[in-house]
């Protein structure tokens, strides 16, 4: 039995914190300052292999305007209250809505959810951090605009601002989200507001169309960082093409990953296949709708024999490539012939689209939706694969080269196998890079298994780094370790920027390993 005492921000006296809370209630209203444990409980749900006690906020603030955010920042500076900013709080598996460390006050921007502008001519949007993909989608449908979004997989409830700021990816040709971001409004730690790009020009009409502005380009400083609070963000939207053809290519041999990537790379770089293609392993493709214990009840890694049974039963491959063609029907026919020829050479690929692909098992239906910017929650099913509520995304980057993919797959499987976990993974193919996304699923209710998951994740980070592979993103438990793999010179620059922009260290301390 345990009952928890009151949580306070680190280094802040109880009386000062109470005074700060009083100030927050003046800036907002009493209902927008949460301090009761049942209100804060949703912010404490984590899936990482960390201690629950390390991720409990002391409060949560729910502003509705950028001006309120400015006042909050000034108050936090005065009382040295650390805040952890979330947009919609759906960074699931990367820390979710929990603070970076116990005692931080959550700055929850989900009520700042205005769609300020969608321009159907230049295909842009300007939105606040609380806007969800579903909300923006509904708005576009309501207006009858022929524009597509690019949601990540568990998408309807997440938002473009939060996902872009964490440099997330989607599955259409606009899949690299930060690449399609244009212009920000940012509240700095001292409460001042700055607009990036062309936003500094009063009444500029090009804030959402010209990324670079004048002088140093600084938008990147506000991604995966703690240098400011983004209160508005512009993004580019994809015009709906006249025709769209999603397709599926299945390969049955584990070794085939090398061939897949070698065939795909020139097609991606030349934009024959323009979207963020995924190469999905059996266990991910099945794991969205199949439960592990139906095939194997051991606590070690699922054996090859069970994987083969899943492939047979579900009609899925060892590797399942989901991609799409976009354009006019004539363009699609031309490109389809190129794709078919390229993948047919070795005779190993099974290439499908339309009804044939729909009849195969796996995720063709929901993947087809994602690649045209429609939303679904199918991948939440992965949380049922092993059960127990543990999930951590291990996401190293590689070149889009078959040899590197083969190397990464083997290394990941070897380390996961050592600790008794399954290789539930996909590759997201960028223009020249690959995001190797592995969901380390484990039973968080079992302390031994949780410790193994922690050790496994830590070893994955180190061993991948030794071979030259870094992570593109990680969860709050491992941000410090991952930052370390990128070297001291870069960390020193990050720290210098932090000290310059946030000398009291009030903004999301520890984000990406960055502190004063």
């Amino acid at each position: 039995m345990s009952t928890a005492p009151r949580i306070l921000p680190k280094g802040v006296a109880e009386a000062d914190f109470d005074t700060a809370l009083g100030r927050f209630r003046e800036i907002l209203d009493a209902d927008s300052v949460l301090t009761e444990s049942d209100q804060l409980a949703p912010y404490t749900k984590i899936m990482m292999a960390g201690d629950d006690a390390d991720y409990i906020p002391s409060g949560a603030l729910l502003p509705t305007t950028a001006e309120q955010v400015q006042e909050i920042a000034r108050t936090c500076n005065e009382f040295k209250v650390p805040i952890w900013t979330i947009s919609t709080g759906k960074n699931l598996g990367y820390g979710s809505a929990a603070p970076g460390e116990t005692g931080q006050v959550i700055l929850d921007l989900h009520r700042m959810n205005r769609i300020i502008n969608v321009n159907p001519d230049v295909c842009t949007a300007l939105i606040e951090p609380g806007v969800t993909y579903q909300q923006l989608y509904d708005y576009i449908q309501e207006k009858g605009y022929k524009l597509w979004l690019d949601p990540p997989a568990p998408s309807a409830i997440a938002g473009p601002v939060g996902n872009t700021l964490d440099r997330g990816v989607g599955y259409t040709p606009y899949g690299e989200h930060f690449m399609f971001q244009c212009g920000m409004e940012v509240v700095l730690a001292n409460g001042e507001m700055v607009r990036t790009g062309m936003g500094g020009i009063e009444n500029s009409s090009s804030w959402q169309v010209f990324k670079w502005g004048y002088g140093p380009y600084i938008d990147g400083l506000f991604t995966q960082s703690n240098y400011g609070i983004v209160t508005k963000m512009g993004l580019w939207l994809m015009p709906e093409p006249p025709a769209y053809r999603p397709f599926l290519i299945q390969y049955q041999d584990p070794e085939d990953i090398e061939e897949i990537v070698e065939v795909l790379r020139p097609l991606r770089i030349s934009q024959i296949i323009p979207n963020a293609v995924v190469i999905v392993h059996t266990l991910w493709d099945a794991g969205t709708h199949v439960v592990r214990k139906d095939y194997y009840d051991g606590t070690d890694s699922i054996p090859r024999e069970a994987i083969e049974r899943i492939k047979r039963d579900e009609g899925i491959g060892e590797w399942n490539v989901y991609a799409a063609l976009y354009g006019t029907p004539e363009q699609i026919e031309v490109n389809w012939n190129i794709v078919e020829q390229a993948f047919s050479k070795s005779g190993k690929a099974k290439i499908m689209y339309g009804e044939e692909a729909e009849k195969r098992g796996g995720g063709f239906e929901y993947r087809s939706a994602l690649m045209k910017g429609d939303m679904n929650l199918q991948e939440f099913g992965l949380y049922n694969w092993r059960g127990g509520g543990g999930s951590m995304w291990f996401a190293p980057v590689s070149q889009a080269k078959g040899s590197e993919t083969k190397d990464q797959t083997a290394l990941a499987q070897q380390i996961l196998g050592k600790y008794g976990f399954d290789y539930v993974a996909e590759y997201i193919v960028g223009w020249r890079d690959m995001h190797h996304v592995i969901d380390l699923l484990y039973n968080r209710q079992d302390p031994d298994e949780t410790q193994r998951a922690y050790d496994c994740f830590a070893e994955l980070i180190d061993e991948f780094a030794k071979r030259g592979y870094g992570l593109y993103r990680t969860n709050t438990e491992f941000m410090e370790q991952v930052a370390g793999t990128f070297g001291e010179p870069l960390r020193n620059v990050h720290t210098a920027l932090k000290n310059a922009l946030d000398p009291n260290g009030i903004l999301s301390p520890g984000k990406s390993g960055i502190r004063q």
Partner: protein
Amino acid sequence: MKLTRRQLLKNGLLLGSSIPFSMSAAWAGQTGSTEVPQHGQINLYGTADSTTELGLGLRQKGWAPRYEGRLDPLMLSALPGGTLAAGFTDEAGLVLLTSLLVGRGRILALGRHTGGVHHLMSQRGPLVEPLAVEAGSWQAALGREYARLALTSTTGRHAQQFHRPTETPLNTSELSFLVRL
């Protein structure tokens, strides 16, 4: 009768307006069920027998459970503020439920029930013992405890683990919740 979604659809009993016959029969046959509910309505979610029993426990303590079928957390946002909801879900449902409550609702209690071991986390102060010792099903005892927590104004995180001889297979895991929107 197992209350699967398919069975409910087949019998035209899904969602909201009425509870399935089997559930109402189970509830009506129990002591106290004829009393007029004293405390108001709790939306009840889940698709297995556990849900029936949970509803029974709530009903025994003066609540009026309203059966809503399988939990679709996205639908919760359409409910009025202050609505109480309880039930059972799976891991995916729990992740979705808790993330949707961020800044929008309160988690009063969560339970994880695996092979006779019950991990309960209350945000409404200490839990009491009946789950471990009361006669009848553990789900009904849980319903009575959730009924009490729904009424208490005490706050504070409190975690407790109960052991109770298993009535379900050891590898079966159920996740319960009590939340207020």
